[in-house]
């Protein structure tokens, strides 16, 4: 019994990481209706930038975030202004194919620069430390990951609904043309949204790298987890995305408990069940 409770708790905490994968995806979809196929590869890119930073400066991966976050944000802004804005429009094909091409480029650039060998960020004692909660040993790192996920989503929620920047995001999301007429520079707002999304991606990438080993090819899988969390939770609802991540994480750890080979399969099945029963997700955004 206690093993099942343990699997459940681990799943909930793992869900925090998936929510971080998903938050950036959800944000840019909400602002500019862009589904970024390269999102998973950008997470992996952040992990590699973190790796280089820790190696060159000899700092802890969490300290490296001080560099990785602004770097990823700058990449995001440049990518959006230089490339993705040109692809946006009524037709869904260009953004899809451009980000797909981007995914292949990032993957192979990482392969060229870092080889296919699995890498890992060294988090030190935090990786193995745990605290006892009601007879369960809960790892500090998963707990911290979950707390960070909650904090990130709270911050995004605050930015979205309580700041001038968020008002800009919501304005271009509601109606791009009218937002332009009101004096907003659409291209710039989109750039800022992508910068914010990739700053979140930086956090996700570093936490991923500390938790498990990574290689250039794993981006697609991370994209799928993030995407499943978004759809399970309901489009356009950030707290729903966290719930979606948790459901996905729990499905995976419970699946792995039954048979190690079923871990990923159980997550996908949970996603497909939600899609069959509640096509709009469990907590779709209510239009006010």
């Amino acid at each position: 019994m206690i093993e099942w409770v343990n699997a459940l708790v681990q799943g909930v905490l793992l869900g925090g990481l998936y929510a971080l994968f998903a938050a950036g995806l959800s944000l840019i979809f909400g602002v500019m209706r862009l589904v970024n196929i390269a999102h998973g590869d950008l997470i992996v890119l952040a992990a590699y930038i973190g790796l280089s930073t820790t190696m060159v400066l000899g700092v802890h991966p969490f300290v490296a975030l001080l560099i990785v976050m602004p770097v990823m944000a700058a990449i995001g802004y440049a990518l959006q202004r230089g490339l993705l804005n040109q692809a946006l429009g009524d037709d869904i094909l260009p953004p899809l194919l451009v980000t797909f091409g981007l995914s292949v480029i990032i993957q192979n650039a990482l392969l060229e620069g870092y080889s296919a060998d699995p890498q890992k960020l060294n988090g030190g004692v935090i990786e193995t430390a745990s605290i006892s909660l009601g007879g369960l040993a809960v790892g500090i790192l998963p707990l911290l990951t979950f707390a960070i996920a909650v904090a990130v989503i709270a911050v995004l929620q605050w930015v979205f609904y309580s700041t001038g920047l968020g008002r800009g995001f919501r304005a271009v999301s509601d109606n791009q043309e009218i937002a332009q007429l009101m004096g907003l520079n659409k291209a710039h707002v989109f750039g800022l949204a992508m910068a914010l999304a990739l700053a979140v991606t930086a956090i996700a990438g570093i936490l991923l790298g500390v938790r498990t080993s990574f290689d250039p090819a794993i981006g697609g899988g991370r994209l799928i987890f993030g995407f499943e969390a978004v759809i399970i939770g309901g489009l356009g609802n950030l707290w729903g995305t966290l719930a979606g991540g948790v459901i996905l994480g729990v499905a995976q750890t419970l699946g792995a408990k039954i048979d190690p080979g079923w871990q990923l399969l159980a997550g996908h099945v949970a996603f497909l069940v939600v899609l069959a029963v509640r096509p709009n997700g469990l907590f779709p955004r209510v239009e006010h």
Partner: protein
Amino acid sequence: MSAPAVTRATRASRIAMLVAALVLAMLALAPWWAGRADMRLMGEIYLYLSLACLWNLMAGYAGLVSVGQQAYVGFGGYMLFALTVFGGLHPIAAIAAAGGLAAAVSVPVATLIFRLKGAYFAIGTWVAAEVFRLSFAQVSALGGGSGSSLPVGIVRSLSSSRSGREALSYWLALGAAVVVIGTIYLFLRSRRGLALTAIRDSEAAASGLGIDIWRTKLEVYVVTSALTAVVGGLIFLQKLRISPDAAFSVNDWTAFVIFIVVIGGIGTLEGPIIGTLVFFAIRETLADFGTIYLMILGAVAIVVMLKAPKGIWGLIRDRYDLELFPLSYRVHYEGKGRKGS
């Protein structure tokens, strides 16, 4: 004033069909004039051409942008192995049966993923492909995660001599390409093809004319899935070895295929043919550079998508008003051609 005449064929399309028939006849005789390596390469070209035409039918005409077609390539490959090893079927019968089974499987898959729209549909197809991959990796009789090889006895049942097998494998690949292109061509010329072309041009208008969009898209998805599985069976009949990672590779069976169609020209029948030739020309010259070659391919696809979204064939068609496959209607006023639909 004579009454305007409506035709589909043009002089260019008649010449193109004649040339195509001649080229096809020459290619069919390749086992007598081409070397072993050339035949292998050409076989691979035909199979990629088939995959590209099928993906183009889905994405270019039905608006179903899938990044999960590897699901059916791998399914076809695994069905070839399962039906020959455990079902005792002849490989060719197994590949045909794989097509039927894929059609049956694709219906429930479609009812689920059709709930997702646009780009989310794309990732949904990828999830479906991952489910296929993970499920086949669980089947230990088929080698589990590490895969298995086609037993020698089954390979021999195709033909006793090596050159005989290679010729047969070549003809099957060529036949697949002809069947795929022929099927798509006839489909597009039919009533349903007209409905599909209408959907491509405007879903709202097509729906207003009484076209059942969901049903038309489902038909395209099922037909495409079945034929993709047949091509997948042929691919792994050439490789003789299968593993979940190779069978359900998103790079090999979807990324390259998408690049081929985008570079050649999406939403036209000619585009994938040109794209396949360009893709193999790039691959044969740059393949030694490994990862750099893939980065160049990705960059070329991005540039084409942004600067010339209709691809190479789109540029040619707009410049010369050419159409090699007679699909659109043209109205002629006193001998002067003008483009119709």
